[in-house]
């Protein structure tokens, strides 16, 4: 095996030579440094972005309630440890790559010490991660048990029902076990400082309820009730989005939690329990009421005092127009700031985002002081002026505003029922009348 005898290159070496000809590898090296640099920049930018809490209507790392805080306390140290491990591993790999690279002047056939393993080392690096994980496991067990919902005498119980593609809330205020005291949609109103137990279920497919600033998520599974605890200690508005894929308009299914002072809560409850306001005789709103009754609206929506619930078997909803058997209760439509699964503002939002306290910040005379109503990431405030154009557009063509499946005539399994609101073909006059009526439903 005398290498000297091999005057000409082997085929392998010719291929290698062809591969390494030219200056491209140097450019690629520069590009590589840039790629690593860009990756690191994105990494550092992300760390900054993650801890920057400004202007984030949704934020999983900004706990505003005890449950979310408990989760945060557990996960932040883990992020730190994971970050350290990542830096160590990446740095080690980079260091090894640099230190043990084959030098250009080196014999290509040279090689290092032929180690095949090292038992103590193996055991050490099996044990160290196991120990770290063991510590994390203990924290996980403690935290998990702490997060379990506990229902006490003071707990406010609310049944939360996911449906394609909005949420309804049924309150049990007198604690008789029946969730028949108050019904509302999209916006959950809770008193501050009080434990709330959500009994989450679904009327159709699986959804997931998530208010990141108050607690993690919990699936809404049809035929099953999942308990989930919430508590907001500060007055505020907390946004959430559906997080289990639930069909066509999964992206258009939000929920809001408005936490208000106990007094405001009592006032709100009193208002919600009343039947709908009767519009003045001869007014535009009175015309709107007639439209509501005459058109298909009343076959899915309920306005207490105006029509009866059509659902005869709430378990199956077979007699309703909807697959879920239910559409948002409109009795107090105007007491809410958003509609259509909380994705559109029916009222002006607060100008400085949704962390503003619940309460008027702008007036009908001075809407310049209000937020931008088309900024749907900032929920409308029920005390701000009504913003009609969104509602009008909705009545004109709901499917254009939010993808839904209202035409299921070809689907024999749908049994004539629809998913979402169809275009009712209303005239402009009817729309004006309906909007006028809806605006009175405080």
């Amino acid at each position, binding site marked *: 095996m005398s290498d000297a005898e091999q005057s000409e290159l082997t085929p392998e070496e010719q291929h290698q030579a062809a591969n390494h000809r030219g200056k491209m590898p140097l450019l690629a090296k520069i590009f590589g440094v840039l790629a690593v640099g860009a990756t690191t920049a994105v990494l550092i930018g992300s760390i900054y*972005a993650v801890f920057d809490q400004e202007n984030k209507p949704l934020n*999983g790392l900004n706990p505003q309630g005890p449950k979310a805080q408990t989760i945060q306390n557990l996960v932040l140290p883990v992020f730190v440890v994971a970050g350290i491990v990542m830096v160590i591993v990446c740095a080690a790999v980079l260091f090894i790559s640099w230190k043990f690279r084959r030098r250009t002047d080196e014999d290509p056939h040279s090689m290092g010490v032929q180690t095949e393993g090292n038992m103590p080392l193996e055991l050490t690096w099996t044990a160290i991660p196991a120990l770290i994980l063991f510590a994390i496991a203990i924290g996980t067990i403690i935290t998990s048990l702490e997060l379990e919902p506990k229902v006490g005498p003071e707990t406010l119980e609310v049944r939360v029902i996911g449906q394609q593609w909005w949420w309804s809330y049924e309150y049990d205020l007198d604690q008789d076990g029946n969730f028949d005291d108050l019904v509302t949609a999209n916006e959950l109103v809770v008193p501050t400082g009080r434990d709330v137990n959500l009994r989450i279920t679904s009327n159709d497919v699986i959804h997931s309820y998530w208010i990141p600033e108050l607690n993690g998520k919990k699936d809404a599974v049809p035929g099953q009730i999942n308990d989930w605890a919430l508590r907001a200690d500060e007055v505020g508005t907390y946004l959430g989005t559906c997080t289990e894929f639930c069909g066509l308009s999964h992206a258009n299914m939000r929920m809001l939690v408005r936490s208000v002072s106990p007094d405001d809560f009592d006032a709100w409850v009193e208002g919600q329990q009343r039947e709908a306001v009767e519009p003045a005789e001869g007014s535009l709103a009175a015309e709107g009421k007639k439209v509501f009754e005459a058109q298909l609206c009343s076959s899915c929506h309920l306005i207490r005092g105006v029509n009866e619930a059509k659902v005869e078997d709430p378990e199956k909803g077979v007699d309703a127009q909807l697959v879920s058997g239910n559409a948002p209760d409109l009795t107090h439509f105007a007491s809410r700031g958003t509609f259509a699964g909380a994705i559109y503002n029916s009222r002006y939002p607060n100008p400085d985002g949704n962390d503003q306290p619940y309460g008027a910040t702008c007036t009908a005379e001075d809407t310049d002081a209000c937020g931008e109503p088309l900024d749907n990431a900032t929920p409308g405030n029920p005390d701000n002026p009504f913003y009609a154009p969104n509602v009008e557009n909705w009545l004109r063509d709901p499917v254009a505003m939010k*993808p839904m499946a209202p035409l299921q005539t070809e689907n024999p399994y749908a049994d004539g029922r629809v998913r979402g609101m169809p275009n009712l073909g209303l005239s402009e006059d009817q729309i004006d009348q309906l909007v006028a009526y809806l605006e009175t439903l405080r």
Partner: protein
Amino acid sequence: MAVADAPLALPSGAPSHDGKVLGVFTRAQRTTGWRSWITGVDHKKVGIMYGAAAIFFLLIGGFEALLIRMQLWAPRQQLLSADVYNQVYTMHGTTMVFLVVMPIGAAFANYLLPLQIGARDVAFPRLNAFSFWCFLFGGIFLNTSWLLGGGADGGWFMYAPNNGVLYSPSHGIDFWVLGLIITGIASMVSSVNLIVTVLNMRAPGMSMMKMPIFTWMTLVTQFLLLFALPVITVALFLLMFSRIFGAAFFNIDDGANPLLWQHLFWIFGHPEVYLMILPSFGLISEILPVFSRKPIFGYSFIVFSGVAIAFMGFGVWAHHMFVSGLGPTSVLVFSLTTMFIAVPTGVKILNWTATMWGGRLRFDTPLLFSIGLITMFTIGGLSGVSHSIAPADTQQTDTYYIVAHFHYVLFGGAFFGFMGGFYYYWPKVFGYMLSEKMGKWNFWVLFLGFNLTFGPMHIIGLQGMSRRYYTYDPNFGFDIWNKIATIGAFTIALSVILFIVNIALSYKRSKSLPPVGADPWDARTLEWITPNPTPEWNFDPIPTVTRVDDFWYQKYEETADGGLVKVRDAKDIVQDSDGVGVHLPSPSYWPIVLAFGLPIVAYGLIFSWWLCLLGGAIIVTAMFGWAFEPPDDPEAAHGHGHDEAGHDDHGSAADVDALEQEVAPVG
């Protein structure tokens, strides 16, 4: 050749020696030209076809990914409707999992596994071809849904009851169910085939603990498939009966529990994750020692951590269901099992790092991709630990944080490993090397694009952007990160184009160069003892193995001081037989015919019962044809020459025996 007269384990059904059984059922003959690919049963041809088909599907799945990223470029984009977006992301996930990552793993397994263990083919060559055609037809069938009313729209996880006809009346999910049943048959058949191959057909001297690590990881993968696939098949049949025959398995009104689907899906779905990543782990365990010029560090630890991952992989499925209301005890149990699966995974990472330590690292493209895998998979693994913590997972699950995590694992892990494997094994398979220059560009552009795409998803995910959203509003603070991700996705696309251009240009360049030679990388394992590209007969004679990295230690011998000294040149070790006298399994028409019947039945289930009859007739005919196929066409000179006709009457089911006869005289 005493074995020839022994009773056959699997009678071929061929009763006579004249090969004229039932007239029409003659044997395919061609071993060259396009017909050799259609009828070929050679594991190398099957492997190449697996790879080519997977890259074709990669382009489809990649195009779907680009559509997703274009839609999310800016808030309230109108490029795709909600309906189309749901179809596109569903098909992106399904395609990438079932038609790209799994088949690329199968491509490497098919091509390399017999070579690494010193066999001439897999145990059941016709079944092997059948697996491929099933996969290809299943994949094409799945994608024809785009032309026949739209793709599936329920997400690749296809949760009940949203997967029912009430909620998804189009045929998309029917295509999805039936397509996955067909590709499932492919994987199931293939897993049995490869397990039998590894257990029975290793070269003399190759005990289990002398097998290359890629072979080990592939073996583990096949066991994962063997036990996981039946579960998803059950789920798919329940869904098929629900959708097509009106069964009520997932009908809530009739008292069904929709979590049944989730359990079935994830009992399959989580082992699935490991069976996608383990082949890549195997590949870089081959690449790292070669380019470090050192043995793998902790061979047995790498092997057994792979086995441990597989075992533990069956006990973690419910971590996909932490928020579905399982109850605190179940959640905690699965939380802890999930955490501790990080231990064997970490062991692998550290062993690879230790393999590089003290080596002489040759920074060719395969090594770059391997290092990419180690670092990127580490990031994916660490984010994985963060959501094994059940309370934290309630904040993270179903957000883009999860999307980031599993792309770091499956793209940064599995796919980087495959790319390294492509560059490393290209000369083995095609006889020319891919350009290093373009390879380095390929790597760095992919590395940059990958991190730009999936890095920002950690942020928007933690912030609160849910997965599977076709749109988002401005003012959530998602815009900038989505823009970066979209730019990254196109950077990835550029890198994939670079790879394809590299293949073409390198092929062109190779014509002005001599054949690549047998050992372009100074490699270690048995597959390199055969010339490049591998001759049809693989080995002649079958080698005898004395230790791990047998080829390497034929080139280098240990000195007294623990160093190595070169004793032989590769070209003196590499076999250069002409293969005369090697008996090879004959080609066959029937695998492709049998596989072709399956999608016809599937179309029939969707559109018309008559098609079912037609498909059924094809299947039955093919089964008879298969069973009555004569062992060999007596007129044809197949492979590279016969030895005495005497042992031809084994039939191809007995090709094992034929192969083992070749082993015997060597051993």
